[in-house]
């Protein structure tokens, strides 16, 4: 079948549904595939059912889907990320089980295993790590810099819509057709039309293109927000460390997403229009793809890990009751990493065949990154040094990070040596390395941030006990799963193998699958913690808003914050402005006058574009040309129609602001400040007694 000769539904037919496979050949492989599809369908039905039962459609639409409030958009990003995380973890467990079931072929078919590692990688990077990072940043950036919203609130909503619709494509691929088997990197010519004529790579391409657009828009949004909307007095060198990491991340996004978009669109041109960018014949060159992909891929890992560094910086500083040590050096280190990350992409393909000189240059550039990273690690340790450390949940994540991340970083330095890389290229050693930086580095950081800022977002603290259990499970689950992979990697076990024969690998595979089960428990524990915290929320409320005696501006306002964040835009005089104000006894000032506040009005454009782009992608994947054309026109028209809207802001009258703010100030003055010893106790209502001893 060629692209020209397709019917009303394109190439979509009954065989595309996995149930057809189960009926034809009932075996373990098909049962796993169908269970996955069933989980998606049951999940959708359950969500729809619950929403209808509790009559939540109205509030969902009014308060969330159409909201342009950066805090709500941030929360929606994180909910989406956690749903996708559940799928990614489950896939990881199935993969570890498959390899532990060896030697031999295990219970899955090779194709299915390939789909698993492709979706696992794609989901974890693009639909867990990225949205989680963006969710936190969305929530925090305006609060930290003293702004009322991001620079482009509606564009923010559109970014979320595009990211979610792209993520939904991966869910749809479970139920209709199949996903790519080409790994998260989707190297052609394997993913080209000649070898892979099915829909799999097309799902990958369009999910990547659409989420890439969303990501780029977010990067622009954050960069401009931090650049232009800082509160008066908030000079660059007074920015919280977290904002510095986000501004560097945004720069990486703006310059590193285009290579991915270019690579994916060129692959699409090859597959759909018979171009010859990456084909084997007529002058195509797949190495161009590898080059483009990693021009994106390497900055990508830093755009994920830098915000996590920012979170750790805030956490270490707060829970050591000290100022962040070496702020200037941390800023310089962050910026150096951001720039250096553009100069190392070749280390992902040392074995492609270029000269030793080129390999040496990029190897050295790669090793250089260890220097600023080392500076950071020492700064964090110096922040801890002689601090009054509280071993709260975010701090425990931080400590696990410090120890484990150094191992991951050092294995990266080993890999940066081209001669070593030739030996372990494409083995599980590499898999162990990048999980070792991505789990303790990115995921632990995000979870630390989730625990740290949760009370700010919802007004009550997360359960401390279950939080600690979660930290333990993640930490040991990670170590059991991935540290053995270093050893089998050195023994020569290739990554992505659904089948293996060497009996020496077996014990390691067994340990790894046990670790994967512990990680599964860790995921459950995250959910249990959330459940119990919601159940006990009356005992942990922190309406005053500063449960951790923290340093930065976001803690100087109520929890949860009002839609306009700051009743009065703060005047910043210090790097840790709120901490300085508390020391002076000048926190919670009563303003002289209030002003009307203009906030962006609700709009449905983000949701509309989410739906339209979802249908557009589906139509393109299945060659339903009329539908794709229709959606293209509708997307353009709805965007143009949106620009005709003039009434985009609504005003909150000064009186209303005054009433809310005064009520909160009364609460502040009537609350009893608590010592740090009672941080986790019900007495902690969010008003901190300044820790004067540590502050001096």
């Amino acid at each position, binding site marked *: 079948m060629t692209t020209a000769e397709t019917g009303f539904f394109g190439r979509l037919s009954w065989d595309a549904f996995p149930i057809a496979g189960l009926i034809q050949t009932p075996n373990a492989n098909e049962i796993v595939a169908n269970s996955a599809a069933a989980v998606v369908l049951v999940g959708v039905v359950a969500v729809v059912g619950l929403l209808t039962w509790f009559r939540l459609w109205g509030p969902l639409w009014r308060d969330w889907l159409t909201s342009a409030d950066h805090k709500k958009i941030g929360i929606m990003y994180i909910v989406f990320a956690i749903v996708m995380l559940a799928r990614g973890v489950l896939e990881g467990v199935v993969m570890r089980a498959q390899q532990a079931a060896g030697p031999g072929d295990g219970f899955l078919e090779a194709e299915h295993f390939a789909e698993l590692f492709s979706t696992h990688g794609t989901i974890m990077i693009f639909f867990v790590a990225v949205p989680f990072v963006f969710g936190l940043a969305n929530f925090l950036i305006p609060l930290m810099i003293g702004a009322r919203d991001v620079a482009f609130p509606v564009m923010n909503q559109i970014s979320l819509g595009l990211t979610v619709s792209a993520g939904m494509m991966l869910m749809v691929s479970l139920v209709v057709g199949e996903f790519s088997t080409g790994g998260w990197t989707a190297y052609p010519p394997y993913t080209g039309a000649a070898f892979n004529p099915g829909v799999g790579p097309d799902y990958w391409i369009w999910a990547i293109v659409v989420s890439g657009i969303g990501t780029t828009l977010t990067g622009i949004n954050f960069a401009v927000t931090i*650049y232009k909307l800082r509160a008066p007095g908030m000079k660059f060198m007074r920015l919280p460390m977290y904002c510095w990491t986000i501004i560097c991340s945004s*720069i990486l996004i703006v*310059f590193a997403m285009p*290579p991915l978009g270019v690579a994916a669109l060129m692959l699409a041109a090859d597959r759909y229009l018979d171009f010859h960018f990456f084909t084997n014949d007529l002058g195509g*060159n797949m*190495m*161009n793809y590898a*080059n*483009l992909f990693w*021009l994106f891929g390497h900055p990508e890992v830093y755009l994920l890990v830098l915000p996590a560094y920012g979170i750790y910086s805030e956490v270490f500083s707060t829970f050591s009751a000290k100022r962040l040590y070496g702020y200037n050096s941390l800023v310089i280190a962050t910026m150096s990493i951001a720039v250096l990350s*553009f*100069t190392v*992409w*070749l280390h992902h393909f040392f074995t*492609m*065949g*270029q*000269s030793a000189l*080129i390999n040496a240059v990029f190897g050295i550039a790669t090793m250089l990154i260890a220097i600023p990273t080392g500076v950071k690690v020492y700064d964090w340790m110096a922040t801890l040094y002689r601090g009054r450390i509280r071993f709260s949940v975010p701090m425990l994540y931080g400590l696990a990070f410090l120890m484990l991340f150094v191992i991951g970083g050092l294995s990266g330095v080993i890999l940066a040596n081209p001669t070593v890389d030739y030996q372990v290229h494409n083995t599980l050693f590499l898999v162990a390395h990048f999980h070792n930086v991505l789990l303790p580095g990115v995921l632990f950081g995000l979870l630390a941030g989730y625990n740290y800022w949760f009370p700010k977002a919802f007004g009550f603290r997360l359960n401390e006990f279950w939080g600690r259990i979660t930290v333990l499970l993640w930490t040991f689950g990670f170590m059991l799963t991935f540290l053995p992979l270093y050893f089998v990697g050195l023994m020569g076990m290739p990554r992505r193998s659904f089948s293996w024969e060497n009996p020496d690998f077996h014990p390691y595979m067994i340990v790894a699958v046990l670790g994967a089960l512990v990680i599964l428990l860790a995921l459950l524990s995250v959910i249990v913690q959330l459940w119990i915290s919601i159940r006990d929320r009356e005992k942990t409320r922190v309406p005053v808003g500063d449960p951790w005696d923290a340093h930065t501006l976001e803690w100087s306002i109520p929890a949860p914050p009002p839609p306009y964040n700051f009743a009065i835009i703060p005047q910043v005089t210090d790097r840790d402005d709120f901490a300085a104000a508390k020391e002076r006894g000048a926190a919670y000032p009563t303003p002289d006058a209030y002003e009307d506040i203009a906030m962006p009005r609700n709009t449905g454009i983000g949701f509309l574009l989410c739906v339209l782009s979802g249908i557009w992608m589906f139509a393109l994947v299945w060659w339903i040309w009329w539908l794709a054309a229709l959606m293209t026109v509708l997307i353009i028209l709805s965007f143009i129609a949106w620009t005709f809207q003039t009434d985009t802001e609504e005003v909150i009258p000064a009186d209303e602001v005054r009433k809310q703010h005064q009520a909160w100030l009364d609460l502040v003055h009537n609350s009893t400040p608590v010592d740090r010893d009672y941080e986790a106790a019900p007495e902690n209502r969010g008003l901190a007694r300044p820790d004067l001893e540590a502050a001096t």
Partner: protein
Amino acid sequence: MDKRSEMHRRERRRYIVGYGGSLLLTLAVFTIAYKYGIQTKGVYLSIALLGLAQLIVQLVYFLHIDRRRSSREDLDLVLFSTLVLLIIILGTVWIMGNLAVRMHTYPM
């Protein structure tokens, strides 16, 4: 009002100067191409340099990028973008060119 029309004249002049400069450079490029052909390295080099000059003329006169304080942010942005772009393009050409030579992909 007088001051406004003065400003208007100044801004308009700026555009027209930019246009004139770009026009001259374009004509120069095409004249060179017609007169000498573009087979030799020297000719191509001069064409490339004239192209670069035209980029700068348009940046300054049309896009108002210069070293005044008010456009410093844009200048920084453009310079940083140029740096990244150079890394990306030169890196790509270096790597892929080297691969082509080593793999005898094309007649070099």
